[in-house]
């Protein structure tokens, strides 16, 4: 794992090579390309943290530098990899993906190795800020993705008929590593097996519909919770113990519709994640966005929302105080687990602009009003659990570059 000292490294790397405009072909077979982003942000809240941002200007939360070497053996067979250096401590730097790619014809594409998970529209390209108009893609959809890559294989089929273009992708694999919950790295290792998904994208004229379904078997052992669960089983509180199981199936469903014209674009995306175990609530996230393009400038507005369902806890344990201190401790621990599980809603309103000042560079600025309509949306991090509803403005500027 490589940790870079901070944004200074990214900036100096950018300045050193800012003249190199496009992908560099080192030989006929080897191509090196990449991208970088420098992002500054400020949150107008005196005590909370949102997506890493606080009320001090920070350049270290989302800035990154990525290098993508690709080697072609022939027209059909190639190997590609991507190395990403993140300035944020929440993201691991190093090899993001590496795979063997086989394209027997223009209709088929097979890949095998370490791949990015194509959950939602921008999941596999989340780090490539240049590819979307926002500084930060809606957190209610994109910060809930559980993990960014997997080991396995994928098959993709493309066809363009007279009026419809179709892309079908199916993948299968496994994942072992850090788990994210509402954008924050949970300090436990998770094991995902039998990860499988199918993604269908249909384009007709300016309209694009993407639908996908993903499922996996997930095991995440959080040490404190596992210990509590064992104690509950040992004391015969089977219902309560069972509600703390953190192993089971996870299902994610996504639908999005985009409409693009020369001067404007509209996009709506909706996602729903359900788990087969009770401690993890169901989450629904969506956003609606409209934008206008005026020469090199883009203006956009987005409304976004996330909703957690209520978690199903058992009411088998007596509420403290019961007169039995040991019993009270157990009950308190049990109810605290559920009291710290996110079950709120977050609404956000974003206004932003993007200026494509060079063919491969863009500057962006945006302001987002974040409003919890039900407390504990899971996004506002605070030192203590608290049932107040929070709101704040997030101000961000970005420099995006592809080479």
């Amino acid at each position, binding site marked *: 794992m490589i940790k870079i000292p901070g944004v200074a490294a990214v900036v100096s790397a950018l300045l050193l090579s800012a003249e190199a405009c496009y992908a560099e072909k080192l030989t006929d077979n080897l191509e090196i390309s990449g991208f970088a982003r420098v992002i500054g942000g400020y949150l107008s809240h005196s005590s909370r943290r949102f997506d890493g941002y606080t009320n001090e200007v920070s350049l270290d939360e989302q800035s990154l530098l990525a290098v993508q070497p690709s080697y072609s053996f022939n027209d059909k067979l190639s190997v590609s990899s991507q190395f990403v250096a993140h300035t944020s401590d929440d993201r691991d730097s190093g090899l993001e993906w590496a795979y063997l790619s086989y394209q027997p014809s223009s209709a088929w594409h097979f890949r095998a190795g370490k791949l990015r998970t194509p959950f939602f529209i921008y999941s596999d390209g989340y780090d490539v800020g240049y590819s979307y108009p926002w500084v930060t893609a809606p957190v209610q959809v994109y910060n809930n993705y559980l993990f960014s890559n997997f080991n396995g294989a994928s098959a993709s089929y493309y066809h363009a008929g007279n009026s419809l273009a179709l892309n079908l992708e199916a993948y299968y694999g496994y994942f072992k590593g850090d788990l994210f919950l509402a954008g924050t790295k949970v300090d436990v290792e998770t094991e995902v097996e039998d990860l499988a998904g199918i993604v269908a994208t249909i384009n007709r004229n300016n309209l694009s519909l993407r639908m996908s379904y993903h499922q996996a078997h997930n095991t995440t052992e959080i040490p404190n919770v596992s210990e509590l669960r064992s104690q509950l089983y040992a004391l015969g509180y089977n219902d309560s113990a069972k509600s703390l199981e953190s192993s089971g199936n996870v299902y994610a469903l996504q639908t999005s519709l985009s409409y693009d014209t*020369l001067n404007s674009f509209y996009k709506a995306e909706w996602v729903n994640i359900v788990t087969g175990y009770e401690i993890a609530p169901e989450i629904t996230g969506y956003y609606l966005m409209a934008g206008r393009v005026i020469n090199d400038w883009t203006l956009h507005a987005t409304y976004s929302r996330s909703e957690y369902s209520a978690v199903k806890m058992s009411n088998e344990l007596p509420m403290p105080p019961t007169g039995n201190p040991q019993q009270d401790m157990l009950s308190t621990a049990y109810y605290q687990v559920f009291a710290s599980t996110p079950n709120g809603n977050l609404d956000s309103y974003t206004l932003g602009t993007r200026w494509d000042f060079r063919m491969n560079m863009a500057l962006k600025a945006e302001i987002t009003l974040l409003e919890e309509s039900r407390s504990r949306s899971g996004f506002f991090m605070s030192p203590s659990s608290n049932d107040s509803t929070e709101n704040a403005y997030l101000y961000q500027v970005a420099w995006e570059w592809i080479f």
Partner: protein
Amino acid sequence: MRLIFSSLLALTLLSAPGAFAAFASERIIIVTHSDNTGVRLSREQIRNLFMGASVGRDLQPVALPPGSRTRSLFNIKIVGLSDSRVQSYWAQMKFTGRRPPPQIVNSEEAMVQYLLNTPSSIGYLTADTDLPEDLVIIYATD
């Protein structure tokens, strides 16, 4: 919040400022080798082909470099997107490892030569280009 809603509405209702009007009068032709004379493609199919989809034949799209005026015309008239949006699209495709962008040649002269030498390729040129005998037009914009 009210401000943001009205801005959203304003964005939607704002009439087209005619940003791309300067290009309107110039025409683009889609050209391939005469070996492919029978090929008929709709504007939509050409768009899909240049955005990386297969049209059932192994026709390889060839593009001019970003910044080229003819490329902008092609993006506006066939793809229906501004240059920077097309750039964003290819950044997404390339850096997610999904599809490589089309082969790029540096000038219209190089395009003519490439199409002559590579019969399975398809490219675009401005309508006033003198076409050699071995190249045929399969689509022309208004």
